[in-house]
């Protein structure tokens, strides 16, 4: 029982990051119908840039945190301006998705150039005794990761449902033609969706690095896991990605704990194949949601 609880908490921790990456996938998908396969790189940028500002330059924590988010946002912004915008008029989704792979390779290369191949870490946000809950040991950083993820989700919920800009983004995802005719500048919305998804990916990276370390090439696997989380919940559904992310995290951690740690990464791939074959609209999705969208 204690062991099970321990596994669940460690699953929730990694699951948080999958959820954040999954949400990032959804935000970009909703505004453009693109799968941004560089999504996982934003998590790595978050972890490594935080190390750079916080440990490397010895800046105060909050300053480093803010600067890291700014850098991630800037990368998202540049990615959209330089690679997506010039192609979006052509409307070739496959081409744009391939370009996102190119961007992810580029980012990985640049990060390796700057940081080398070593894993990086920095101290947890707060020092102190781990909390013991029904026998399971929970480090404070675990609570930070889960807490920050919940805060991100809450902020995004308020943004999409309570602000005009958020509503405009939602409007674009529902009917891009009508949105345009309501005076909504769709290309600005696309840009914003890249920035937001980059920033929330980076938040995940910043929070998880003290627990699981961060190295330059973690992004690809994170993209796969985040994508898995997103399709578990049904691509494009914000809440779906959250549930998907946490579920995937827990399943992984249970597999690693009870079966074999070597099978950990196989879980996501297995789930992904299973869903794509049997329930392409996601576990919670209805098939009518799967729709082809064009520009």
């Amino acid at each position: 029982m204690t062991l099970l609880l321990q596994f669940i908490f460690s699953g929730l921790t990694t699951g948080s990051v999958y959820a954040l990456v999954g949400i990032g996938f959804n935000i970009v998908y909703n505004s453009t119908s693109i799968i941004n396969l560089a999504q996982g790189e934003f998590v790595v940028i978050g972890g490594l840039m935080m190390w750079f500002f916080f440990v490397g330059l010895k800046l105060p924590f909050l300053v480093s945190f803010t600067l890291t988010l700014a850098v991630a946002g800037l990368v998202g912004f540049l990615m959209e301006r330089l690679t997506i915008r010039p192609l979006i008029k052509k409307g070739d989704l496959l081409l744009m998705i391939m370009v996102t792979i190119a961007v992810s390779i580029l980012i990985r290369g640049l990060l390796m150039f700057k940081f080398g191949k070593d894993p990086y870490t920095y101290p947890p946000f707060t020092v102190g005794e781990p909390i013991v809950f029904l026998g399971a040991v929970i480090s404070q950083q675990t609570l930070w990761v889960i807490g920050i993820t919940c805060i991100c989700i809450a902020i995004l919920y308020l943004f999409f449902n309570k602000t005009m800009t958020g509503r405009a983004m939602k409007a674009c995802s529902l009917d891009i033609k009508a949105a345009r005719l309501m005076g909504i500048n769709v290309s600005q919305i696309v840009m914003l969706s890249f920035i937001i998804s980059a920033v929330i990916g980076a938040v995940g990276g910043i929070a998880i690095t003290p627990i699981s370390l961060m190295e330059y090439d973690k992004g690809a696997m994170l993209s796969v896991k985040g994508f898995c989380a997103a399709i578990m919940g049904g691509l494009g559904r914000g809440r779906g990605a959250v549930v998907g992310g946490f579920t995937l995290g827990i399943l992984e951690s249970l597999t690693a704990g009870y079966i074999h740690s070597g099978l950990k990464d196989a879980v996501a791939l297995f789930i992904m194949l299973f869903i794509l074959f049997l329930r392409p609209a996601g576990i919670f999705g209805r098939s009518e949601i799967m729709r082809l969208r064009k520009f």
Partner: protein
Amino acid sequence: MASEVILQVINVSKSFGGLRVLNNVNLSVKKGNIHALIGPNGAGKTTLLNIISGLEKSDNGEIVFKGKSLRRLSSYKRARIGITRTFQNLELFSDMTVIENVMAGMYFKRESGFIASGLKLRKVRKDEKDIANRSLQILDFFELSHKKDEIAKNLPIGEQRLVELARAIASEPELILLDEPAAGLNIKETKTLGILIQKIRQDMGITVLLIDHDMELVMKICDFITVLNFGEVIAEGEPIVIQKDPKVITAYLGEEF
């Protein structure tokens, strides 16, 4: 009625592949009028509306709105200078609530800009409130305020049309383009729609350019009619004149009258 021209279509042509859909179409809409564009199916009416609202580009010719050419303006900018529209096949934000749909129409009307709205929370909240209040007034006008929190796609078609109209009105346009607003409505709903369109012109001073096949509606509420057939204007004038035009009768009204 006032005689100032608000919208001019000058020599507009459009082909899809080898098919000439519009051929040197000229058209003037006077400010404050309810102007109808009628014609048999495939006459090019919707294409012309798409060109005016910027969804499609004409091969040549010019659209002039309030004395300015629209050539360089993309569709969202046209919406911002006062041209809005509804669609033949409803294009509501189907998963949003009724009031959210109307609020979306006011997206660019709020004072605080795109970036600022991310920073000045108090200002945003005030804007939000104003927009919500204004949206409610508009829904009141359409007698839909009791359904404001329902998801748009769950409403019956007749009410969805009204929501789409409300959303278009929300952006405070000077010209509104209605693509078959009465399609799929029953006789009673069509009658209400006619009254509402007249009220929109009367109370809000909005010029209306509409396409419809419901001749009763068109003849009753319109001040001026332009008839398209195979991409060309074959007649224009007041309803009385159009009803008697032999060319129109053969091309279009023939079977009915």
